[in-house]
């Protein structure tokens, strides 16, 4: 059985990627490379940057099907427009105007069902690319990258997930920031969620939104406080008061941050930080064994 873990945060920039790639490395060592990493931050996937020897294994274009209206057959009855809950089909009968707004279309296919006059056909539109990489350690990395200008981030994540192999013991999903559809899509099939936060008022505010979402989705979770030592105590007080599990704290260190910025995340890992990751790794493995 594969244990699926999402690494998420409400606020952006709390350290999801840092935690994801480090846990990938630690877990790969511990589990004989039986780990996959999936970069679901489709607007700007960057996990691959930290693996200097990453080799592209596979690249596939991700498409969505969007409808096209044949104006010769269309009677401007507006039934397709009524079926479309995303308002992607503007129809103006008086002007004999019917069109599809591809940036609003979610490819649900309802308009094709609605049309009684065979006026709607579907054609593929590129919305992103899936890339899989072979890495020196672990089972490799898969990323979904949204095409610039496309708003279909959720669909890119959904399609990217189809390339995940079932053979790994652990699959890590590096989620996009926020609490909206792309995050829900990333988390929805996961067994466990790691919430990465920072001890600042913004980090706390957005973590609370995330906690609400995870309760709604009935997902068990643990928290990692990154950049510990910055900000204030309120995040710790909140975690303690609510009785949430604190998986670990990563102290804020300028040298570590600057190594990250230079893409040298795995070079000169300070001993305290290494210890934290090793502890978190142990906790995750024991959670996996409990499943």
């Amino acid at each position, binding site marked *: 059985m594969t244990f699926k873990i999402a690494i998420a945060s409400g606020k952006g920039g709390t350290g999801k990627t840092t935690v994801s790639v480090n846990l990938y490395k630690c877990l790969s060592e511990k589990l004989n490379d039986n780990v996959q990493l999936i970069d679901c931050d489709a607007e700007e996937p960057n996990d691959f940057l930290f693996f200097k020897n990453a080799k592209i294994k596979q690249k596939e274009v991700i498409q969505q099907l969007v409808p096209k209206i044949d104006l010769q057959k269309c009677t401007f009855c507006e039934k397709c427009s009524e079926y479309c809950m*995303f*308002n992607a089909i*503007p*129809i*103006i009968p*008086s002007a004999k105007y019917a069109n599809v*707004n591809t940036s*609003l279309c979610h490819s649900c296919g309802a308009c094709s069902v609605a049309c009684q006059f065979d006026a709607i056909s579907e054609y593929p539109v590129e919305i992103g690319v899936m890339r899989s990489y072979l890495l020196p350690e672990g089972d490799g990395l898969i990323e979904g990258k949204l095409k610039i200008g496309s708003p279909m981030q959720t669909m890119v994540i959904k399609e990217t997930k189809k390339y995940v192999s079932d053979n790994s013991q652990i699959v890590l999903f590096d989620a996009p920031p926020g609490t909206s559809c792309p995050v829900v899509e990333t988390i929805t099939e996961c067994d466990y969620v790691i919430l990465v936060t920072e001890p600042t008022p913004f980090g706390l505010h957005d973590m609370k939104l995330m906690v609400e979402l995870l309760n709604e989705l009935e997902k068990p979770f643990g928290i990692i406080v990154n950049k510990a030592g910055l900000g204030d105590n309120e995040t710790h007080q909140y975690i303690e008061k609510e009785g949430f599990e604190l998986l670990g704290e990563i102290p804020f260190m300028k040298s570590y941050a600057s190594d990250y910025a230079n893409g040298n995340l795995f070079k000169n890992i300070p001993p305290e930080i290494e210890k934290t990751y090793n502890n978190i790794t142990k906790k995750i493995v024991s959670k996996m064994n409990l499943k």
Partner: protein
Amino acid sequence: MKTLITSNDQTLSSTMDKRLGRAHWFCIYDEELKESTFQINPNIDSMGGAGTKTAELIIELGVKKVISGHFGPKAKEMLEKFDIQMIEVDDDNITIEELISRLNQHSN
């Protein structure tokens, strides 16, 4: 000629709503008859595409001029296609009455 103004409420003393697709009310002013009517925006709670839906409504109403705070790209594209003039007014407190009187001054 008819002009549509996005409005926060249904009276002439209401302030202009700066949103198009998510405006509360639409005031439709007829410059020839000097008559104004208000109608509620049916698209205010739509999940997405409220601007496009509103542009559809504007075109169906036969309006030639629209006054609002901002026009999004999708609504803009449709309104341009049907040659409807868009006027952006960046003022939080301006009333429908004031906008109508400016329109009248302009046409005189």
